[in-house]
């Protein structure tokens, strides 16, 4: 992916939208969402037995006669897990697979640039799932998107080796039967940060009437005849919006970020317009 001009340009332009480390303190560390032992003060709360008495704020006790504990933001290691949906549905149009590859490479390179140890995990039928480090990201360029297993299936089976306190980035179209709440909850579990990125083709996002068509599910090979008229498209869009709304709501509850990208827009545009706007990337 390092040979991909778009990826290289994006890697030079952006950096991951993680929280900045304090001006003083140990260098090279990033802050996570949870409370930890870093030097960055986060908030107060009342003392409860078992709390570290080293964090008691005696000055506050003197002022208010109440034992208060100073809470500090936890320090996280910059480990990134990039889960890429390698199912056949991602290759229904080549642009989807291409953008997914570019995003995975970009996130890996940006994470590596921060001194982390990024891992790209293509979600495929192979067991165990392969973990591709920064050194092997060039393999992503020719990665086949032919899997039939879905992200939901793999999570339910517990076959995705997720490391705690990692920056977790999930790239998929999410066009498979799923329960958004449960799926996001599982993904967000023990993650320092969770970014959920939905990649759709332009026709998938905004289909146009085509008349009678035999729809073939690229993943399951199921078929159905349908008249693609405005009424059918309206129904489809209604269901798609419901899916996206559900995913977005679940992500907010899990303090995760959900974005939808249109594959045909290209890496440069999605980085500039969508990923930066959502805070996943920021200009370096």
């Amino acid at each position, binding site marked *: 992916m390092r040979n991909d001009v778009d990826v290289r340009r994006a890697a030079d332009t952006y950096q991951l939208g993680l929280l900045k480390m304090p001006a003083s303190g140990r260098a090279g560390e990033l802050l996570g969402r949870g409370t930890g032992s870093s030097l960055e003060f986060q908030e107060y709360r009342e003392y409860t037995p078992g709390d570290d008495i080293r964090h008691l704020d005696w000055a506050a006790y003197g002022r208010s006669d109440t034992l208060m504990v100073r809470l500090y933001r936890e320090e996280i290691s910059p480990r990134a897990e990039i889960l890429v949906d390698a199912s056949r549905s991602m290759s229904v149009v080549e642009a989807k697979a291409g953008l997914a590859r570019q995003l995975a490479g970009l996130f890996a390179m940006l994470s590596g640039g921060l001194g982390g140890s990024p891992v790209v995990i293509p979600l495929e039928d192979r067991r165990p799932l392969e973990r591709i480090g920064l050194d092997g990201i060039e393999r992503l360029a020719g990665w086949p998107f032919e899997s039939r297993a879905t992200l939901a299936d793999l999570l339910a089976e517990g076959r995705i080796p997720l490391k705690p306190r990692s920056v977790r980035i999930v790239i998929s*179209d999410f066009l498979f039967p799923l329960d958004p709440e449960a799926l996001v909850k599982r993904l967000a579990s023990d993650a320092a940060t969770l970014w959920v990125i939905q990649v759709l083709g332009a026709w998938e996002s905004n289909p146009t009437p085509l008349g009678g068509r035999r729809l073939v599910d*690229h993943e399951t090979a199921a078929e159905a005849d349908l008249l693609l008229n405005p009424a059918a498209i309206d129904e489809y869009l209604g269901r798609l919006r419901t899916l996206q709304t559900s995913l977005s709501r679940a992500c907010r509850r899990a303090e995760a970020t959900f974005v939808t990208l249109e594959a045909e827009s290209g890496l440069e545009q999605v980085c500039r317009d969508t990923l930066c706007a959502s805070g996943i990337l920021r200009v370096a």
Partner: protein
Amino acid sequence: MSFANPWGLLALAALPTIAAIHLFHRRYPRLPVAGLHLWGVARMTHTPGRRRERLPITATLILELLAALVLALALARPQVDSFDRAIHLVAVLDGSASMSAHRLTAGGPARTFRELAIEDLERRLKDLPQGSAVTLIESGRRPTLLFGPQGHPDEVSAALAHWSPQAVQHDFQPAWDLADQLAEASGRLIFLTDTIPDSERANLPTRFAVVSVGEPQPNLAITAARWTRPEDKATAGAMGEITLRLVNLGRRDTTGTVTATAVNGQQDQPVFSRTVELAAGRSQPLQVGVRPGLGEIDIRISGSRDALELDSRVRLVEPVARTVGVAMTLPADSIARQQLNRVLVTLPDWRAVGSGEADLVIARVAEVATGSSDQWWLGVGPVDEDPAARKRAVDLSDRSAYVLEKRHPLLDGVVLGGVIWGGVQDLAFDHTPLVTSGSRSLLARKLDTRSTVFVLNIDLARSNLPDTPDWPILISNLLEECRDSRPGLRRVNYRVSENVRFRIDDTAADGDKLLQLEGGGRRRQVARGRLVEITGLTRSGLYTLTDGDRRLARFAVNFQDPVESSLVSLTAGERAAAVPVVTTGFRIDSPYTWLILLGILMVIGLAVADWQVLRQAAGVTAGPLSKPRFLKSS
């Protein structure tokens, strides 16, 4: 359940066809998508190997199958609950003219027996169970299928409206036999007539029920009618003569009025009117002179005691003279010529012409034609006029003469008793002997010519044949046979059921198209040939035979049947069938009906089973109308 038109069930073949179209035919181009469930449609899953898919049960398919099913059933006309009780009623309608007679009442003519029979039949048809079938046969010289076989009772009325009984007396047996065959084992047979037949004498099948609607009625009839030309045509003002035979077929004396009207184009012209007193049960001739040139005459007899109109009217065509041209080339002083002239002057409708234009040439044997002319010739002996040959000729007595062709028309009425056959010689040419004596032919027909040549192998100077009564008969027969061989009708007035046979000229005989005969309320075609024969004339009326625009013949056919005209013995009543018919249902269709049904049910069953099996194999539960599931619990 049964079907009036079981072949309509073949339309059910459209069901598997529609299913096959839905099963195998890809209507739409393929479009790969990522999330089929978001489109809210059912899934069809492919199985590996040969491509077979579960039949997609869509609203379109269901509606198409229902439409095909309804159409097939409409074509087959199902009749529920009729199979066990349906009846095949086969009715024989008496086609006799007496069925057209009115039932006379004090107030005048009431309904005809035909109308009473129709009323009775329609009442029986209303009582038939649903799904029953009807066959109507009209009796006659040849039975006619009026309706059916096995038609729907609702459609009988149209056939009955066209039923017009006019037949002369005939045997009912052919109609009964035909009905018996059509009814098969379970059909109900009924004979509608105006007289209950004697079962033993009439040999009525035992399964027949008889309904008679007749009642004794008086009747006036014209049982014979003839129009003859004037005897002496040379006399100015000579009158032709119409001869009628009038019959009072009632039990009381009555008075009838006979009126004759000349039919000349659009205008009718009265010819005569006579009032006649007719004694009960007696016939009375009526002769009336009429002037020539009237063409056609319509004659009616009317009276208050006349129940049947059909036999009270005759139409006559004026006879036309058919003159035969006769040429005689015998020597003027010969005895043969004198003897022939003596006979010819007494015979009518011939004229002396030259031999070139003659129809009949009477000549010496040595002069008879050997060409291809269609002339008739009579060669008169001696065959060899050489004195030596005449001397060798023998004389034979009547005892040795033998009539070889007794039914030959030339010898009709000829006895040849006491005839001395003088001057008989041996014949040296091919011939068919008509009268022989030993090995010698006395009267023969010469064979080596297309012309019709008869040879009288005697020397009339040595024979007494001209002195016997057979001589004028023989010459008259010859003249009449020659006349019959000429083109044109022999007679112009016929009775119903008589055959009309006559010759037409060469021009008409050599055409390609069929001749057209129009008359009696119908039009028919007649085979073309030199000899035209018209048979089966069962309706009275004026008939015209045409060849394109050319009229070849016009003749009249009249109903003249004294037996059928007699209505005094008509009886009313009913007689049940001697052997009750077990109407346990009948087959109104081909024996393959249920095989067709079974086959169609099998196809439908297999289609349903196929769909069910594939459905289970696919393991798909989502239906076409089910709510799409993109939310899946983990």
